[in-house]
């Protein structure tokens, strides 16, 4: 029998420490929807999504009610659109956005292209359409993979993405560059990621599967409050135990959802995903460990311990772990990161160092509006290099704040939060980016 203390602990995690299931994301394969006619393809895509995801939101709400735990988002990820699109991809984007609205999901990911080694004609068409599509659609998210450990870094794609990020910011400048919050540039993108904006359903995925992302930075912080001043052995153990409990609930929700929707259970993503709400911050876990603010010396080591302990605790709690798994460090979506950026504790260079040991990369960072496309491409190249060399996923989701300078604030609202604009190194990299071509895969790509 479960003891009263255990019941109270679970209830406190949910009611006071913001423990929730961050997302149930249904991955849907769209390869069979390809059609030379874009409208026809779009219609088939719409019909398939509406058929498979019809019960996604109601089932999510049922589970939420029965288990008494919030399931914050119900979302859909689809096959990268460049793989099914034989002409203009824009009509497909409109159909996808309509499907997301019809299904009641807040985001649908997969307006994507995988071009780590080179671009197909469809990839090129999709890339060119991204700024317009993100400005015109509400719920569609886009991602582009420009590098991998096996293929190296496609510097032509990196250069193009610098331009695309800028164009997207310009087209959505009246909403503080909101389009860029829906656009991720990846290295080593994963095929089963449930988190937006970078979710897509990879070519190796089944017809339809449910992937679940857990959360709970507030729970980890509270657990660490009980071991203040203790050595790191104790800190790591405490994080592991907490991550285990959190992930077990994620596993339960994933199993229930897959069963009720009659689809495959894909993975549980063992992530600590913050929100702008107080008590839901990854940065505050780092300050609880003893750094004055995120960004202070010691921050990278603290994050490395956290990221590793979350995985070690979580991996025992689920039979399939995947996605991005680790600690997210988005700036605008984390109150502790926002405060640190405002105080000047957190610089772009420190954030880059932190991405070497966190689950993803430079995330939701507002930069001055006059930052050139080449400089953005340089930032993307640096981040991709970290991912490629360290055999991990890295990503860049930065928002050039058009008309704003360092110290100003951008406001996205809701889960996307707000962020101070942080300065970018003023020295140029135009000649470096202009070279193009491909940075070869590192030696350790040859593992066979």
């Amino acid at each position, binding site marked *: *029998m*479960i003891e*009263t203390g*255990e*019941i109270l*602990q*679970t*209830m406190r995690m949910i009611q006071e420490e913001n423990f929730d299931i961050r997302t149930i994301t249904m991955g849907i394969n769209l390869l069979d929807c390809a059609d030379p006619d874009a409208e026809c393809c779009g219609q088939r895509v719409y019909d398939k999504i509406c058929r498979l995801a019809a019960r996604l939101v109601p089932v999510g709400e*049922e589970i939420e*009610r*029965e*288990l*008494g*735990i919030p399931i914050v988002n119900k979302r859909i990820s689809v096959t990268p659109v460049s793989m099914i699109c034989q002409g203009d991809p824009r009509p497909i984007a409109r159909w996808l956005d309509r499907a997301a609205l019809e299904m009641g999901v807040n985001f649908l990911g997969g307006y994507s292209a995988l071009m780590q080694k080179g671009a197909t004609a469809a990839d090129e068409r999709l890339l060119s359409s991204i700024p317009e599509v993100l400005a015109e659609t509400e719920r569609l998210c886009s991602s582009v993979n420009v590098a991998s450990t096996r293929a190296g870094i496609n510097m032509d794609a990196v250069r193009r993405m610098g331009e695309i990020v800028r164009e997207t910011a310009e087209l959505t400048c009246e909403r503080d560059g909101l389009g860029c919050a829906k656009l991720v540039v990846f290295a080593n993108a994963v095929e089963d990621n449930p988190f937006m904006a970078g979710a897509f359903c990879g070519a190796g995925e089944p017809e339809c599967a449910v992937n679940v992302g857990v959360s709970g930075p507030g729970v980890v912080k509270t657990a660490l409050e009980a071991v203040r001043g203790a050595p790191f052995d104790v800190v790591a153990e405490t994080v592991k135990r907490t991550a285990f*409990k959190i992930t*077990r*609930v994620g*596993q*339960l929700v994933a199993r229930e959802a897959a069963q009720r929707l009659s689809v495959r259970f894909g993975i549980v993503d063992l992530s600590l995903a913050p929100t702008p709400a107080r008590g839901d911050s990854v940065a505050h876990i780092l300050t609880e460990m003893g750094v004055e603010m995120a960004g202070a010396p010691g921050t990278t080591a603290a994050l490395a311990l956290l990221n590793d302990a979350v995985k070690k605790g979580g991996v025992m709690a689920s039979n399939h772990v995947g996605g991005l798994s680790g600690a997210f460090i988005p700036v605008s979506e984390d109150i502790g990161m926002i405060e640190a950026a405002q105080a000047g504790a957190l610089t772009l260079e420190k954030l880059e160092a932190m991405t070497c040991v966190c689950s993803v990369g430079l995330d939701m960072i507002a930069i001055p509006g006059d930052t050139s496309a080449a400089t953005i491409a340089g930032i993307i190249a640096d981040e991709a290099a970290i991912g490629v060399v360290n055999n991990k996923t890295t990503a860049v989701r930065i928002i050039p704040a058009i008309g704003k300078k360092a110290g100003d604030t951008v406001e996205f609202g809701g889960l996307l939060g707000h962020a101070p604009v942080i300065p970018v190194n003023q020295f140029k990299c135009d000649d470096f980016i202009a070279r193009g071509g491909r940075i070869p895969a590192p030696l350790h790509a040859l593992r066979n």
Partner: protein
Amino acid sequence: MTKALISVTGLDATGIIACVATKLSEMNINILDITQTILDGYFTMMMVVDLDGAQRPFAEIDEAFDPIRAQLRMTIHLQRMDIFDAMHRI
């Protein structure tokens, strides 16, 4: 057996257990375990029940407590035991 936890919290008053237990009995829901205490004037009760006898959807059972929630001004949560088992038992 579909086990669920009913947690009842709020200012103490006469007849809280009677009220909740009567409702459960009306719905043919068997009580398996009860823990109850008063903390600083706050009534706190946890009941483990078996929902199978009710033979109706979870949401409907939960909604059946709405009149009691309003009448007693108590917070009444109904949730399946699976979440506690998942978190605390291997």
